[in-house]
């Protein structure tokens, strides 16, 4: 249990430092143009990575499992412009369904 509480303590400090670094170092300055060009493209790069890693990674292996079916259903719902909450619930429902029958 000591290990758990130590981890929580250290992680709190590390995590807070990481999140504070950008806002403190950059301050309120406007970023140079080359930087804003990269930043505008960070969203598609990081979001796409989050989507595929959350769907296809299981630890250090790549797998196609029930989550892929859930994501496919979500993609169809997004294409049909369904509200966010519908997309999220549909992904969970389809994933649960595929897990239940497989």
């Amino acid at each position, binding site marked *: 249990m000591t290990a758990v509480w130590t981890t929580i303590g250290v992680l709190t400090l590390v995590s807070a430092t990481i999140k504070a670094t*950008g806002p403190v170092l950059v301050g309120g300055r406007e970023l140079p143009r080359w930087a804003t060009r990269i930043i505008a493209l960070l969203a598609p790069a*990081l979001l796409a990575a989050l989507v595929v890693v959350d769907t296809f990674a299981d630890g250090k292996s790549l797998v196609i499992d*029930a989550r892929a079916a859930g994501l496919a259903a979500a993609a169809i719902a997004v294409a049909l412009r369904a509200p966010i909450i519908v997309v999220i619930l549909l992904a969970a429902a389809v994933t649960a369904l595929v897990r239940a029958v497989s």
Partner: protein
Amino acid sequence: MRAGIRAGLPLVLPTFAIGLSFGVLAVSLHWDPAAPIVMSLVVFSGSAQFASTSVLGDGGTVLAAVLAATLVNLRFLPMGIAAAPAFKGGPLRRAAEGQTLVDASWALANDEGRFDRGILIGATLPQFVGWVGGTIVGAVAGSAIGDPKELGLDAMFPAFFLVLLAPELRNRRSLEVAIGGAALALALVPIVPPGLPIVAASAAAVMGALRQ
């Protein structure tokens, strides 16, 4: 701020669900129920909490657990630099406001590289409530809930990120960068520790900007 809270409301359910999974996981490892709850309050980062908890659960050391979570959270460096101009005040206040950085709020507040402070901070509030609330229920009810995976709760976040990604895909350059980032991250999953593939996807944004 109010617009941010409204934008973050659809996230209460998924953050509650994932927080619940986290609480259940922690007590299944025989943690004191207070530990996951405190962790969600002070660390407030799903991916980092899952990473460090699974390392400890596998018998890893404190150092290994902290390292895993740090790698997972490193993406907040580029995200924090990007969002920095939006925050207000002196260094202390900026450091405090920076704590509201989470993936979903960052993406919601992002308007082609400019960030809206009200949405950045506002959208995090409902997620904090959902995250901590879910952890409390998971930690207290624990094994009575069963396996949250059976409910498909782990598919909620990728689905949400897909919603945020979709409008980006209409622009040709963003589409190319998204494909590049996804391919890079997937290629790195088997090779590098969890978390780093997401950070490395930033390289796709750099390459996309260089080609402009």
